[in-house]
C-alpha cells in the first residue's frame, strides 16, 4: 500500500486521515456496546456494510485511493445516516469519538464531487436566501421582543433556533414564558441559522460567516450567557463553533441545564402536579454528542406527580428519532419510520407522554405519532414546565 494523499483544502482532512490510520472493521460499531441492541438506524435499514460506520470508513478509503469512482450511486451510503453517533458510543477503538466527524468529512468531500444528498441542497440555498433552512421569511424576532417586553441588552440571549422559531412555535413560546416567569434577564437577537443542518450535510462553505454573524449579534446584546432549547443549536454552538475556529466569550446553556440549576439553587419550585406517565427520549445532539443524559431526567423527577419511565434503549443506547444528519429532508419517509420504532419502544413503557429536549426530535416524533396513530402526546420538557405553576423565590 502507498501513502494516501488527501485534498488539503478539505476542512475535515484530519478526520479523513484518521479513516486510514484507524478501524479494522471489527463491527463493534453496529450494536450498542455491552447491551448488544441494534443501535444504527442507517445500517439496520440498508443492511449492507457500506451503511455502517466501518463501511463508510472503507468508502472514504476507496474514494481517496481511487478504487471507487465518484458517482451518484454513492449518495445513499454517504447521506442516508442521521449522524446520531450511536456508532461513536459503540466503537471502543481510538477513532470512536470522531466517527461523526469522519462521516461529516466524507460528506464534505462528496458535496465537492457529486453534490449534496437528496433535497439537501435546499438547506443551503434557503439559508443563504432567508437565513433559515425552512425557507421561511426571516424573523428578526423584534415582534417577539415587543410582545414579551424584552430589552435590547441583557445578561442572557435566548437563541431560539430555526426549528423552534418556524416549526415548533409552541416550544419557543413555552421557553419564552418560562424565562419570563422565572425572572431571567434575557433578550432575543436577529439570529440566523446556527449552521447545524449545513455542517451535518457536508455543506460547509458558508458556515463560518453564519457563525460569525450570530456571535456578533450576541455580543451586540451584551450577553454573557446564551440559552437554547434546541439540542442541535446547543451542540453546534459549543462543538462546531470551536471546530470551525469561531471564538466567543459567552457561556452556552441548554434550557434543561438552566432549569436544573434554578431548581438546585432553590430559586424556583414547581408547585403544581403533573400526574402523567412520561418517557424521555434522549436527543442525540444532547446525549451522545454532548454527554448530557442525567440533567433532563433530574428536572423531570422534580416535577410533582410525574411518573418518569425509561425506554429499553435509553441514555447512550437511545434509538435516534431519525430527524438529524439531513435525513428528515433527504429521506422523509424513512425518518418517520425511525421515529415509529422509537414510539413502539415507548409503548412498552406504558407512558402516555413522550418527551424530549429538542425541537427536531419533537417534530419527527410528532410526525410518526400522527402518521401511525400511535396515540401519544409528544411534548418538550419546557412545554411540560410551561404547564406547571412555578414559585419563584424573590432575591433578598
Amino acid at each position, binding site marked *: *500500500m*502507498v*501513502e*494516501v494523499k488527501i485534498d488539503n483544502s478539505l476542512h475535515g482532512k484530519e478526520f479523513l486521515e484518521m479513516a*486510514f*490510520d*484507524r*478501524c*479494522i*472493521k*471489527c*463491527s*463493534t460499531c*453496529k*450494536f450498542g*456496546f*455491552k*447491551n*448488544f*441492541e441494534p443501535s444504527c438506524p442507517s445500517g439496520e435499514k440498508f*443492511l*449492507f*456494510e*457500506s451503511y455502517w460506520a*466501518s*463501511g463508510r470508513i*472503507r*468508502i472514504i*478509503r*476507496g474514494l481517496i485511493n481511487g*478504487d*471507487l*469512482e465518484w*458517482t451518484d*450511486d*454513492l449518495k445513499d*451510503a454517504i447521506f442516508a445516516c442521521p449522524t446520531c453517533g450511536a456508532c461513536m458510543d459503540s466503537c*471502543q*477503538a*481510538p477513532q470512536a469519538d470522531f466517527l461523526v466527524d469522519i462521516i461529516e468529512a466524507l460528506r464534505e468531500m462528496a458535496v465537492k464531487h457529486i453534490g449534496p444528498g437528496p433535497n439537501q441542497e435546499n438547506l443551503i440555498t434557503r439559508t443563504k436566501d432567508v437565513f433559515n433552512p425552512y425557507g421561511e421569511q426571516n424573523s428578526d424576532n423584534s415582534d417577539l421582543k415587543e410582545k414579551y417586553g424584552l430589552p435590547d441588552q441583557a445578561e442572557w440571549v435566548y437563541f431560539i433556533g430555526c426549528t423552534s422559531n418556524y416549526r415548533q412555535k409552541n416550544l419557543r413560546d413555552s421557553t419564552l414564558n418560562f424565562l419570563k416567569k422565572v425572572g431571567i434577564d434575557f433578550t432575543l437577537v436577529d439570529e440566523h441559522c446556527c449552521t447545524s443542518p449545513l455542517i451535518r450535510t457536508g455543506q460547509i462553505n458558508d458556515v463560518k460567516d453564519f457563525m460569525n454573524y450570530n456571535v456578533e449579534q450576541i455580543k451586540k446584546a451584551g450577553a454573557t450567557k446564551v440559552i437554547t432549547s434546541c439540542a442541535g443549536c446547543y451542540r453546534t454552538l459549543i462543538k462546531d463553533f470551536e471546530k470551525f475556529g469561531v471564538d466567543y466569550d459567552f457561556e452556552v446553556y441548554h434550557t434543561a441545564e438552566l432549569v436544573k440549576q434554578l431548581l438546585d439553587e432553590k430559586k424556583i419550585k414547581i408547585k403544581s402536579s403533573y400526574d402523567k406517565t412520561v418517557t424521555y427520549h434522549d436527543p442525540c445532539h444532547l446525549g451522545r454528542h454532548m454527554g448530557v443524559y442525567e440533567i433532563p431526567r433530574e428536572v423531570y423527577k422534580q416535577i410533582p406527580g410525574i411518573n418518569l419511565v425509561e425506554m429499553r434503549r435509553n441514555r447512550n443506547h437511545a434509538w435516534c428519532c431519525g430527524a438529524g444528519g439531513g435525513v428528515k429532508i433527504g429521506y422523509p419517509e424513512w425518518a418517520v419510520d425511525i421515529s415509529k420504532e422509537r414510539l413502539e419502544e415507548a409503548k412498552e413503557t406504558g407512558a402516555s407522554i413522550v418527551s424530549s429536549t429538542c425541537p427536531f426530535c419533537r417534530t419527527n416524533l410528532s410526525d410518526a405519532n400522527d402518521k401511525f396513530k400511535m396515540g401519544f402526546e409528544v411534548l418538550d420538557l419546557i412545554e411540560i414546565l410551561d404547564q406547571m405553576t412555578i414559585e419563584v423565590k424573590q432575591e433578598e
Partner: protein
Amino acid sequence: MSDKQSDLYPYSYDMTEVKPSMPNFVVIPENKEQLVKLVKFCNKYIIPIIPYITGNNVGGITVPVKGGIIVDFGKKMNKILYVNENMKYAILEPGVTFGQFKKYLDDNYPNLRYSYPFAPPSAGVVGNALLSGMNNLSEKIGSMGDSINGLEVITIDGDVARIGSCFYGKDEADPDHWYSRYPMPDLLGLFVNWQGMTGLVTKCAVQLWPKDPFEKNIVALFEDLPSVGRFMREVGSLEVLNDISAVSIEVVKMTIELPEPKRFPGEPAMIANCPISGKTQKLVDAKLEILQNKVKELQDEGMPVILEDIDDFAKLLNLRVRSFLDLPAVILSLFEYSGLTWFGSYAPSHIHDELIPKVDAIFHKHGVPPFIYMKNMKSNHYGIFRPIIRYNKYKEGEEERVHALLEEITDVCIDAGCIPYKTPEWMTEKMRKKINPGWQNLFEKVKKMMDPNGIFNPGRWNT
C-alpha cells in the same frame, strides 16, 4: 442484493494484508430456500459463492479472490432459533454474534453460558465454531469445532442435509434432537474447518455449559519467557482452570493505551490469565489451593513466576485490563490501527518453550512490539500459538514490512509443527509443501466431490 460499487467495496478486503478483490454482487439472504436457489444458479453458471458474517476471521477468508457473490449472513439470517436448557445446546442461524448470543443467554437462561473467544462481540458464533476458533473455556472443552452438535447445510446440487443427531425425519428436525454429532458417520468433518469450500451452513447447533456462580481470576506473571510453556502445561493438566491463556506483557500495555510499548528490564515478560469457577465458593477455594500448591512447587524448582489476583492487578495497572476477562469484549490491543494480521495456529504444547523466545526475538528483530497470545487446550491435549501484528495498512511500505515479519514467523512455526487455521492462501501454500501426499490427494478428491465446479469460496487452501 446489490451490485453498486460502493456496496461491494467494503467486502473486497479485510484487516489483513491479503490482496483485495471485488465481489460482483452481495446478497443478504433471509432463508435457506433463497440460498438453495442461489446455489443451484451459481453451480449452473459457475459463479463463486463466498459466505460472510462479519469478516473478522483475520485470514482473508471472505475476500472474494475470484469475484462472485458474497452471501452476507450477518444481517438477516442471525436468529437464535432454539435453546434446549436440559441438554444444553442452542440452534443458531449463521449470523448470530457473540454479543447477541451472550445477551440472549444472560437474559433468558442465566444458568447457561457459551464460551467466548479473544474477539470482538460482533464476531460470528457459527463462523468461529466452523473454523475451530478459541474460547474462554478452552481448558475444559478444547476447540469450538468440538462443540458443534449438528449442522444444516446446502450442498452443491441444492440438497439440504442435516448432519448430527438431527438427521432423523424428512422435513424440519425436531428442535430437541440436535443433541449430538455421534454415533453416525461424522459428516461434520466435511464442513468443519473447510472455510466454506464444501457448502453453505444454514443452521448450527452448539453446546452450552452451566454458568458457575462463583468465579476467581488469577494472573501468573513470568520473569522469563521459557518458563511460560512449562507452566501452562503443568497448570493446564491440573484440571482446575476454565482456561489458560498467556500474552506478552507488551499486549497488556497496549490494552492500557500504550500503542507501541517496550518491555523494560525487571518487568515481567509474559502474563497468563487463569480463570477459575465453581458451584460453591469452597470449590473455587479448593481449586485455587491446588493451583497455588502447584505454583509453589514450580517456584521451589526455581521457576520465576508469581500469582496475583487480577482485581488487584487491574487496580494497580488500569481497569481496562479487565477486558481480558469480560469476554466477548473489545480489547484495545487488537483495535489500535487499521490493519491486523497473525499466524494463528494449533501447536503441540511442548514446543511453546522453544517457540516463545524464538518468535519474541523475531518481533524485536523487525522492531515490532511482541504480541504473542497462546493457550493450552483441553487439559493440555494441545496448544494454541498465535503471534499477532497490528499495523497501519496505509503507511507506505508498512504492509510489506509486516508481511515479511509474518512470513518469518510462519516459517519458524510451521517448521516446529504448528498448523495455522483461518489461513490465507500464501500460508496454506507453505503448509502444502509439508503435508503428506495421501492427505493432499484425499483432500482434493473430497473437494472435487463436494464442489466439482469450484464455486464454494474458491481460492481457499489453494483450490
